[in-house]
């Protein structure tokens, strides 16, 4: 395939946003989705998903810590990035991201995790030895009152933080969608549906990630999976996925029916350069297939082992599909010329600052951080088991 097909403006041939910018909305999406899953238990009292509550919070934190790294690595002058905080340009969608990110990290997620773990931290600071004791003592922040009254206050404040956290999570990821959706020069991005689509796809990916992680960690620890919990999570995944898919189809149908001046160019791109990543991976393998699999579990009475397998496959396909969606938005949006007369090609480096190896490292890094967090702040009870499995409702 030639590098350029047709006519591109001469400065357009080189793609500006690489695979790292694909990772950025993917990682923030996992954060928002995992947090919203956690809030199901905390705010909406969906008791069945309780076993995933703490794991979802830690997952959100691990991914949130890594989320700005791809952006930072992509900058031509990363050393100047503090200017976004010191002298932000208020009309810029990107400038405000730093503040939204900090708000979500420091005022919502860290506070909620600390309040939820405070009792455990205090107890562990008393029972552990050596450097672990020191870490836990620092983590108590000098607050070692775990009387019933103090824990009640923690609970109430934690609930309030989660209530604030839900719109914050919506804001975080809807906002990432807005960064793309507000670029009027690019018809592939410029749609008011973009923040909503990003938000629902974030919820889908976050729920799928926590579901897979929960099952994987239980398998690793040889602890039985709470099927009531996983069934409920899968049901929420199914519903959210249907909303997400409907929104994406609405966008697609709207584009096809309206067929504005960019349509022929974008349509050609989807049928050629984006066919594999958009039609095959995102829509068929990453959306239709997992929805169909999840629908099976809703319609048929399948045995536990079959449900586990289906949830694992559907969860992984979902994660691949949402990654493909981010890829198609970010990379796809740069493959065609703003003259609508030509197409360019994305050539990903391997061992470069924005290459494949770095992208793989940044994808694995949150899992490593999660491993440390799980060791430090176990999301399960001290006995080493998740809360007791309960019979289906």
């Amino acid at each position, binding site marked *: 395939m030639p590098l350029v097909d047709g*006519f*591109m*403006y*001469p*400065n*357009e041939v*080189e793609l*500006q*946003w690489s695979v790292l910018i694909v990772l950025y909305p993917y990682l923030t999406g996992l954060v928002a989705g995992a947090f919203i899953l956690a809030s199901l238990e905390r705010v909406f009292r969906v008791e069945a998903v309780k076993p995933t509550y703490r794991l979802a919070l830690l997952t959100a934190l691990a991914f949130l810590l890594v989320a700005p790294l791809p*952006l930072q690595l*992509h*900058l*031509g*002058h*990363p050393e*100047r*990035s503090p*200017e*976004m905080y010191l*002298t*932000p*340009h208020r*009309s*810029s*969608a*990107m*400038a405000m991201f730093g503040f939204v990110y900090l708000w979500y990290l420091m005022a919502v997620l860290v506070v909620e995790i600390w309040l939820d773990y405070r009792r455990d931290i205090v107890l562990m600071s008393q029972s552990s030895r050596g450097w672990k004791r020191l870490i836990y003592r620092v983590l108590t922040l000098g607050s070692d009152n775990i009387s019933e009254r103090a824990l009640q206050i923690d609970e109430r404040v934690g609930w309030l933080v989660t209530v604030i956290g839900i719109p914050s999570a919506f804001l975080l990821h809807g906002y990432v969608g807005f*960064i793309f959706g507000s*670029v*009027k*020069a*690019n018809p592939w991005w410029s749609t008011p549906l973009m923040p909503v689509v990003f938000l629902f796809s974030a919820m889908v990916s976050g729920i799928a990630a926590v579901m897979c992680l929960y099952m994987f960690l239980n398998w690793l620890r040889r602890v039985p999976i709470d099927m009531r919990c996983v069934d409920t999570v899968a049901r929420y995944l199914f519903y959210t996925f249907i909303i997400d898919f409907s929104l994406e189809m609405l966008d697609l149908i709207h584009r096809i029916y309206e067929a504005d*001046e960019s349509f022929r160019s974008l349509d050609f791109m989807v049928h050629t350069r984006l066919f594999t990543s958009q039609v095959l991976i995102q829509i068929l393998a990453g959306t239709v297939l997992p929805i169909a699999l999840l629908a099976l579990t809703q319609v048929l009475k399948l045995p536990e082992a079959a449900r586990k397998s289906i949830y694992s496959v559907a969860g992984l396909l979902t994660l691949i599909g949402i990654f493909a969606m981010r890829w198609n938005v970010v990379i796809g*949006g*740069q493959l065609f*010329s*703003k*003259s*609508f*007369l030509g197409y360019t090609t994305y050539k990903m480096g391997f061992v470069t600052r924005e290459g494949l190896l770095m992208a793989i490292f940044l994808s694995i890094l949150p899992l490593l951080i999660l491993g440390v967090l799980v060791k430090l702040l176990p999301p399960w009870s001290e006995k080493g088991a998740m809360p007791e499995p309960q019979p289906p409702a």
Partner: protein
Amino acid sequence: MNITRRRLLVLLPAAAIAWKHILAGTPEASPNYKLTEHWWGMLVDVTKCIGCGNCVRACQTENDVPDGYYRTWVERYHLEGWAFQNPKVDSPDGGKNGFPPGNQSGGKNFFVPKLCNHCVESPCTQVCPVGATFVTPDGVVLIDQKYCLGCRYCVQACPYGCRFIHPQKETAEKCTLCYHRITKGLTTACCESCPTGARQLADLKDPKDPIHEFLRTHSIQVLKPYMATNSKVFYNGLDGSVR
């Protein structure tokens, strides 16, 4: 001089700000130039452009533009019949070395010089996260190279494809309308080198500038008017097929 502790606390931040300005360097002196008396734009007469590429070469020399990147370029359009939605367009090397003879016979052929449109409502200025891209009081969109993060959001936001990332500096770059020249009473390098006068620098605040008479007596168009960027590069004789 007796400095009290209180006075020192007041003076220190002021001194820090002053030092920052010294480090940033002082702009080249243009003692008679008054920013508020000008409002710059450009007139491009498509009917006069012969596609010689002088403007592209002059711009690259004047502004030290790296090879393969363009602050200005020239496009060649070829149209058959009424199919203005499917023009054949090329711009080999940005038209720097002129154009080889076209393969097609018949139809309509013309050249369109392109550059930053110095939009009043410029999307690139709007999206810059630190305000490194800004509009000067005399209407030129510039980039502060010492401040630009190289995030490339402005490149995405420009509907005309006028921006690029300088491969060595790793900051955004584009046409400055030869700001270093026009503030000294000179014209831009591209206008000066154009043999047919297809490009004319225009001062929209100068009542004596011939641009006013030209705008009054000709059918003028801007590129992608639906983008509502309030572009200040005005085209005469622009065909509807031009993107």
